[in-house]
């Protein structure tokens, strides 16, 4: 890789590593696994860097697959005293921690595939077509997965007296995660 290309790759990694890490974690529920998934996916992207028009979508696809591959166990069984989410949320003295544990528990109640669709579509701001590409499904399936995921999350949060407001979030971008084209690199 020539210096110019490598600099472009570095800029891409610097910009994308945060959102990819979130996608991986929200898919697999384990920060260590998420970190490995992102690191592996981006390393595999390196030799292909010049060949891809949309490395951002390629990276998201690789991260999603890696996160799924590395966690065949149901998310709720992931547990440790380290970085993972506790299996059974416990109320504590901190209102913020309490609420965090409640939304973490709610997200765990959304099936993994639906959860990934939800995150890609409504949090990372991908189009339906892009979401389908990352998940490896048809557009119709991606649409139903994200919609069902959203409904499930809303139900679970409502049971915990948290109202989920879903406005025009589609297309919104979290932390500059929009399209990364060759020109942008």
């Amino acid at each position: 890789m020539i210096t110019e290309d490598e600099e472009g790759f570095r800029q891409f990694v610097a910009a994308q590593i945060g959102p990819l890490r979130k996608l991986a974690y929200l898919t697999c529920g384990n920060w260590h696994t998420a970190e490995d998934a992102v690191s592996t996916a981006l390393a595999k992207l390196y030799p292909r860097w010049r060949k891809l028009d949309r490395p951002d979508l390629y990276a998201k696809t690789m991260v999603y697959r890696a996160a799924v591959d590395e966690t065949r166990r149901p998310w709720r069984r992931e547990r440790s005293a380290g970085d993972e989410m506790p299996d059974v949320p416990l109320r504590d003295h901190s209102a913020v921690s309490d609420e965090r544990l409640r939304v973490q528990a709610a997200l765990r109640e959304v099936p993994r595939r639906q959860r990934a669709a939800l995150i890609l579509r409504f949090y990372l701001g991908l189009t339906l077509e892009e979401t389908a590409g990352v998940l490896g499904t048809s557009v119709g399936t991606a649409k139903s997965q994200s919609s069902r995921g959203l409904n499930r999350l809303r139900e679970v949060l409502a049971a915990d007296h948290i109202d989920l407001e879903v406005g025009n979030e589609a297309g919104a971008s979290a932390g500059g995660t929009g399209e990364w084209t060759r020109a942008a690199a």
Partner: protein
Amino acid sequence: MRLHDVVDLAISDAPPPSTTVDTIVRKGRRVRRRRQAGMAGAGVALVVATAFALPALLPGTPGASVTPAAPAAPSTVSSGTAAASLLGDPFIFTFGAFDAGKWHVSAPVVASTAYQIASVYRDGMVTNDRAVDPESIADIQKLKEEGKYPDTLYAFLVLYRPGAYDPESLAGAEKTTVDGHQARIYADPKDRSTRAIAWEYADGAWAVVESRSTSEKTPAAADLRELVAGLDGATATPAKLPFTLSYVPAGYVPVEVGSHATSGLNGIASARDGNYGGAIFTNEAPATTGLAEPFGGVDGADLPGDFEIFVIPAANSNQQKPGTQIRCGNGFCTTRSADGKTSIQVASDGRLSDAEMTKILQGLTLADVTSDANWTDAVTALNP
């Protein structure tokens, strides 16, 4: 609460990232290097072609109909029954270089707790496991543009210890018999350029040759069969290293070494780059039975809890700051030999502290890297 707020709150207790841009670039270079070894790459090349004008273009490449020289590893082949003499303890080489038809197998340069690995070459095909100068890269590029560049091959022989390899892991392989041995022949249905042969060279002990080429036709399955009869045992020889250690962090054990190469398949991918040696330690010893592939797989993934030692010519290093001062950053520490010609690195991707990696380097004694006569067997070198 908006969805963004829900997600942001859910991940608000995220630990600090342990992966840096530099770490990913470093891993990416490693992936690229391995793929270059398997596919046509302009960065490295070695020619074994007979029908092309390449020998004249590549400095250091012998003439036509070349049998590639094996790395200077133990290769004293003796006669005897393969089934008996091929069996050996961890970190022991039990076979030497051999030829079989158009195949040329080098002496093994990688040894682990479960297997030995050797590079495999073939007449008429290029194996990209040695660096070439920029002028040669231009010549190679020209040949590629003219369609005269030969197909490339990245192949290696893994001799597993008894029980170490699970032949059923080669899913979809044809079950057959080759030269009296139970065997499996495999062609990847999704990537016809990837083929493999596995055969049981002794009870419960399997040898596997994996081949990736740019040709869908070569090597054919019948070609792979030729390798089976060629494998024979040699005088068991310990894998030797050009360094010894006086300190290893508590709980870590050596699991794989490279002699005249860095460790693992990464060492095979750069087998003729003139590297001196390497070792991988882990605090979570990988399984030594039922394996489907060498540790870390074809992409050279890090083992859980591992750290790696690289001893290579300074010219091969991507750490170009001179001097014997130990420099740490991005999860690895590097130093140079007193004469500045050898780079020595401990890399853990942050799994060990800089202080621990520094202590390992401070306890490393380098031998004369140019003469393996005084190198130390791996078990002794790595167990202070």
